[in-house]
């Protein structure tokens, strides 16, 4: 069953056409890799799905029902949560306060720190993330651990559709492995469906079930990763680059 279907989405910003005609679907429990050059419209697409932008045309179907997303909060209420590139973590706060940010547990007017600490520890353990001290400031964590905290927060806020905006950018091999493991863990659970924006095609092939290529505001390629090789994927993107260098103006028709 498709948890998310987008049909003929279009979005313009003034003279700039960010998305021309995008259709994509996300199956239950699936991890979909979204690749494409800078400026291809990946972020715009993500921001439409998470309720930040409204599309000029096209429709979104979430869990079989057509919806018009009014806001990020509206999308969240439908179970769509985004882990932004910036992660939205507060360096000055502890790991557990970050995990419960804006969803704090309380006793009367006071924070129930003990319960939040315990649950944060349990959630992270549950996801196979190793953070020894949940009371440590987030500023002290490595890039991979920070990403893991942000993902764990989204998952435990009951997100059923998770949008990850370049979770592997600026991350070392070891750090990246932590995130890839985390995504595999989610896949094994089966109740969360994920869209990942990524630049590293090897990693995409490694962890995703299916890959979509976004070029000039449209999806131009859609295949299960089992049927694609790394060379093929690289060739797709490079071919377009070469075509452009040969002197044709803009996209080759």
């Amino acid at each position, binding site marked *: 069953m498709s948890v998310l279907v987008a049909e003929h989405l279009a979005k313009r910003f003034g003279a700039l056409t960010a998305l021309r005609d995008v259709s994509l679907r996300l199956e239950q429990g699936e991890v979909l890799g979204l690749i494409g050059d800078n400026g291809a419209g990946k972020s715009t697409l993500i921001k439409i799905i998470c309720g930040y932008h409204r599309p000029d045309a096209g429709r979104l179907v979430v869990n079989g029902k057509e919806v018009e997303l009014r806001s990020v909060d509206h999308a969240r209420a439908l179970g769509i949560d985004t882990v932004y590139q*910036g992660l939205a973590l*507060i*360096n000055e706060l502890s790991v557990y*306060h970050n995990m419960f940010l804006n969803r704090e547990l309380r006793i009367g007017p006071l*924070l129930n720190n003990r319960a939040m600490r315990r649950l944060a520890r349990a959630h992270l353990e549950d996801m196979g993330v190793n953070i020894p001290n949940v009371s440590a400031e987030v500023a*002290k964590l490595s890039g991979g651990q920070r990403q893991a905290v942000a993902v764990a927060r989204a998952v435990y806020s009951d997100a059923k559709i998770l949008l990850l905006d370049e979770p592997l950018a600026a991350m070392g091999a070891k750090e990246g492995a932590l995130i890839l493991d985390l995504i595999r863990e989610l896949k094994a659970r089966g109740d969360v469906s994920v869209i990942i924006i990524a630049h590293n095609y090897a990693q995409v092939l490694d962890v995703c079930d299916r890959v979509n290529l976004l070029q000039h505001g449209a999806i131009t390629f859609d295949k299960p990763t089992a049927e694609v090789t790394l060379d093929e994927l690289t060739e797709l993107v490079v071919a377009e680059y070469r075509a452009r260098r040969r002197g044709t103006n803009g996209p080759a028709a």
Partner: protein
Amino acid sequence: MTGTLPRQQETPAQQDRRLLTLLRRGGTVLVRWREASVLIVAIAMAIYFRAANDVFLTHDNLRNIAQATAPAAIVAVGIVLLLVSGEIDLSVGVVAALAPFLVHYAVDLYGIPVIPAFLIAFAISAFIGFCNGFIVTKLKVPSLVATLGSYYLLLGILLTTSHAYPAQIPEEAQGKIQTIFGAGDWSSLIWCLGVVAVYHVVLTRTRWGLHTISVGGNLIGATEAGIRVNRIKIGNFMMASMLGALAGILEAFRINSIDPNIGGGTALTFTAISAAVIGGTALAGGSGTVIGALLGALILAELQNGFNLIGISANPFNIILGSAILLSMIANQYLSRLRRTGGT
């Protein structure tokens, strides 16, 4: 015997682990508890001045120090809230001067009873804070400039309406009410300690405090997490303004005169900002302590009072104050770097 063997083997290891946890916790407390270093300075200063002059620790002089500390500390609490949320308010000092006049106008010109007059003064102060917050968050004017503007605007209103003349404490407010609100020997200190206690809890143990830190630490992140950042900022502007009003009323009732120059200059505002900064609150936002601000105000009061007793004039006091602010800011930078690189 086989049953006791494993326990014997484990005991030293467990002890080691417990000792390590204890040590680590102790270290964390020292680095984390920024107030500790400020407290040490405050105590050292008291010892020094006591050695230099016997009068320093007498009952009467302690009362003087308490009375100098209290209004600055109360205003500083509001400043800490704002600094932590990434803003500042230069107009609180005038609100402090304006508030007792509002009480005076309400009682003497409009015949309103004292307690409702108090409520009106606090409501107007809260509204001033709301305007400051609105201009900063919705109209996107940086708080330094916005509150500089409201500082002059309010000062003008204050001097025009009062004709720049001091006024008497309203007759209805004299006696018991005046004693409770500032005139009693330790009244302003008690108010101050109450305010500090409440806001220490607010900042460290409530959702409001957590969101205040979030807004100042990472504004975009806080917004993405769904925190209503403008509401937090405006709320803190309102509370800072109301704390300014409280300090002003206490001070007017203590000196038994409603004086437009009380905090109408920049003195009270600047002392409060200094106290907050010396107490370990960074201007960058995201971190700060209310107890530190109280200790900062205490240090400033001790300095001024002690210099007076020793016979040093008020002029070099500013040299010390300036140096203290610079040194504590440099130390703060160093400490936060230490903390970030894993000083624990």
